């Protein structure tokens, strides 16, 4: 098996993050605004109003399209644009109704309210040391880590620089990936064992030992206290 390692990142950035600040920020604004822009030029006709609740794609395979947002017509081709996220319509540019617009023109925002899990995910991505996928391949946890993870509770498996953490399987060739970074607890595994992961997608989230308890506490608080 070939061996490779992942480059280190500056520690200071990670240590500087104040969890309370993060939490406060999400409490005051638990939304994510998704801008809806025109894919190309054309005449726009809105099908939603300001403040209207819209739904994203539904069904088991997300095969049912979301709420119709607007229709854009170019060269006799009427294109129906539907919502890709749940949320409320905001900042709708009704002045563009029935007018010719350029490509990339901002039409509205979908204000998506973040739920508990989304907020936890976002906080974790900012707080944890994320190990990204070096290339598109199938990944497996190293056997030692995998056995430890099965036996011990979340966040209690620690990793240090130089530990073999992952096996990358590409074109029938297995490469062991050694961890190189801040020592800490393996807090989150972002991939399913054996599944193909795109390059740059997160694989593991490692939490520094001094922040571990704090992170767990914050997450616990979010899980119990967050209203929605």
């Amino acid at each position, binding site marked *: 098996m070939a061996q490779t390692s992942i480059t280190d990142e500056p520690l200071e950035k990670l240590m500087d993050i104040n969890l309370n600040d993060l939490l406060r920020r999400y409490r005051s604004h638990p939304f994510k605004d998704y801008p809806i822009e025109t894919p190309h030029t054309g005449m726009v006709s809105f099908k939603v109003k300001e403040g209207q609740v819209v739904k994203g794609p539904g069904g088991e395979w997300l095969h049912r399209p979301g709420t119709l947002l607007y229709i854009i017509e170019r*060269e006799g081709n009427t294109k129906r644009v539907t919502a890709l996220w749940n949320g409320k319509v905001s900042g709708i540019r009704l002045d563009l109704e029935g007018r010719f617009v350029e490509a990339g023109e901002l039409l509205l925002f979908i204000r998506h309210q973040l739920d508990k899990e989304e907020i936890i995910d976002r906080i974790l991505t900012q707080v944890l040391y994320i190990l990204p996928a070096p290339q598109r391949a199938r990944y497996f946890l190293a056997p030692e880590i995998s056995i430890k993870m099965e036996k011990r509770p979340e966040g209690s498996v620690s990793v240090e620089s130089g530990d073999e953490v992952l096996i990358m399987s590409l074109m029938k060739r297995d490469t062991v990936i050694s961890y190189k970074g801040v020592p800490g607890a393996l807090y989150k595994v972002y991939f399913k064992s054996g599944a193909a992961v795109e390059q740059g997608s997160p694989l593991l989230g490692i939490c520094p030992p001094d922040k571990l308890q704090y992170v767990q506490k914050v997450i616990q608080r979010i899980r119990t206290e967050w209203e929605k």
Partner: protein
Amino acid sequence: MRTDQVYMADSVKLLNQLADRISYLIDIKGNSEWANVGGLLGRIQGLHHSLFEIKEADLFEEIDRIEDRVSFLEDRVAEKLSPAEIVNIVRNPQRFTLMDILENVYDSYTELGGEGDCNIDPAIVVARATISRRVKNKLYSHQVMVIGHEKGRGEEYRNGGCARPWGNDKALRYMRVAETEGIPIHFYIFTPGAYPIEDYPGAAQQIARNLYVMAKLRVPMVSFISEGGSGGAEAIGVSGLRLMGSRAYYSVISPEGAAAIEGKIREGERVPRELVEHCAAQLKITAEDSLKLGTVDRIIEEPPLGARRDDYAFFRRLRYEMLRATDEIVLKTKNFRAFRAYALKRRIEEGKEVPEDFELLIGWDLTDLEIERLLEFRFKKYMELGKGYFLENRTFLTKGIRKTKNFASKTYYDLRYGLLRPHRRNVQKVIEEVSSEGSVFLRKVTEPVRAAYDFVFPQPERPSKVVRSEGPERRSIFAEEWESYVSPLANEDCTVTCPNASKYGCLDLWVPDLYGEFCGVCPNCGHHFPLEYQWYLENLFDKNSVHEFNDHIASCNPLCFQGYNARLKKDIKRTDRNSSMITFDARVCGIRLVVAMLFSNFRGGTVGVAEGEKFVRACDVAGTTRRPLLAYIHSTGGIRIHEGTLGVVQMPKCTLAVREYNDNGGLYIVVYDNNSYAGPVASFLGCSLYQFGMRSSRIGFAGPRVIRETTGRDVPPDYHSAKNALRRGHIQGIWDRREFKKNLHDALMTLGGPNLYYR
């Protein structure tokens, strides 16, 4: 003297029986309001509660009064049963099931392929059974294979008698066992329809396989229909004689399904009861209607309100009729006319008593010659189905000319291929054998002489021998298509978006480009936009090679379905065609073939009697002229519901025709385009050994909505895609429209071999 316990037991029993009878009436009528039957049930429940408080005499008097009333109401209901009420009778849990038949009609049985819920598919029950008859006070028994649907008595695992694909596969396996053992098969059909899933072996494909095998199964087969739900019923329904209970129904679609289509009811909405009743009446689903239409051969009389689990007189009658029907099929194959006439004379008429014993013992073993006759009779019987229920727009003179022409061409091709070709082949074979041996010897002797001759008189190089086909033309396809035919869709000056644009980033396509140069195919992702069937007529086949035949056969309204005439007229006017099937001779890169094409513009490409007849005749033409047969399915929505069971019987009819053609050595290829669903796929298309799908086509048994409503399970959006059909092994390949001609030519050459047909 009656003791208290006896009195209690008797009265409770009587009250329970009465309650059952009243519940049965409520189920038949569909509501408890009718004639206040609900009130009667209330009175019985009241008597149950106050059993000890009422005097014995008063109680029995009250029971008698209620019984009189119930009997009166039963007579009233039985006087005029509507088709919807017959459907309710058939679906009632009190109705007899296959297990009751196995226990009461047959002497003994052994279930095969599973038992109860421990089964490949509990909805299909297969059993080796013994059925006996008394002849001159002596008992004789016969071995039979019993195959049927078991609805069960409320057991969920029976799935209401809806056979899964592997259940039908099990049935097929044991049909082959019966064939090996040479014992007759008794089929019992108790299904509202097949379970519409595509998992291997696939609902449609398995039904098609069953039909294909049953077409030439070398044993006598009799079927009895209690609930004949379309394709599911046909999967085990091909037989020499089709019997039907007098309170049974046989239908192309459930009345609810028909009502949802007719009333354009949206998914999840309730179908109005009146509409269901109306559709049940329009579909002509009762035994009398089926007999009139010729889709069943005989009715077996049931009690006026339908046979129930404890109707032993009915089981006796059924046993007699099954024996007689098997006798009849066997005797038809025998040569002794007088004996046959005597034995076939049925001694009972409807309503009369079943005789205690038989006059003759008839053995069910058949000789090879008799088996051939059996298959011949089966073929003829199915070819006659639906005859007279389509229009032939032709004068007496043209009919005569046509007949003469057919006879002449048949004689010519019989002479050419039936007599001369085998003779030529044999002579060729002998020459080849002799020359290959002799040439070795001769070559040694003549080689020096020939070499010297060639040196002195060099010969010009001979052109290679002319092959049968010229191969695909090398000229610009674009220029040729543009000159000959341009899709009218290309006339619009606008752009369209590819449905895969979000996935593959396809750019908008300018319509004249898309439907002209690109042949309706997205140049980025290869998505095939639907094209009209004329495009294929013009572009797939060699120029001026398409010669349509049997275009005079027209669809009509055999069931007098309300509102269907107007729709039919509209479609005839719109498409300028008489049915949804076009049959023609054509050439592909020089290869002559016969084509049957189903197209979507006429009633959604559905198959009715006219289409079935045209297909059968196309098989006949292909067989006579010894040409390959191509079924190109532009689109088909299944069997036409407006033609009821006459449409359903086109499934076995066309499959038998295909089987006959294939067995005579023909090459039958099916190509699916756009959407192909239901009956045709589950019969004469799905049975083909070589099936191909065009890209972006959808192939399946039932659409997503029907699957959701039947199974309660949603299916992924690509469930019916050609790719998944290929993955499941339903088709053999996916073709690109731009290379259709080349692919078809290659397939004809590789699958057909050097002779293209007739092994």
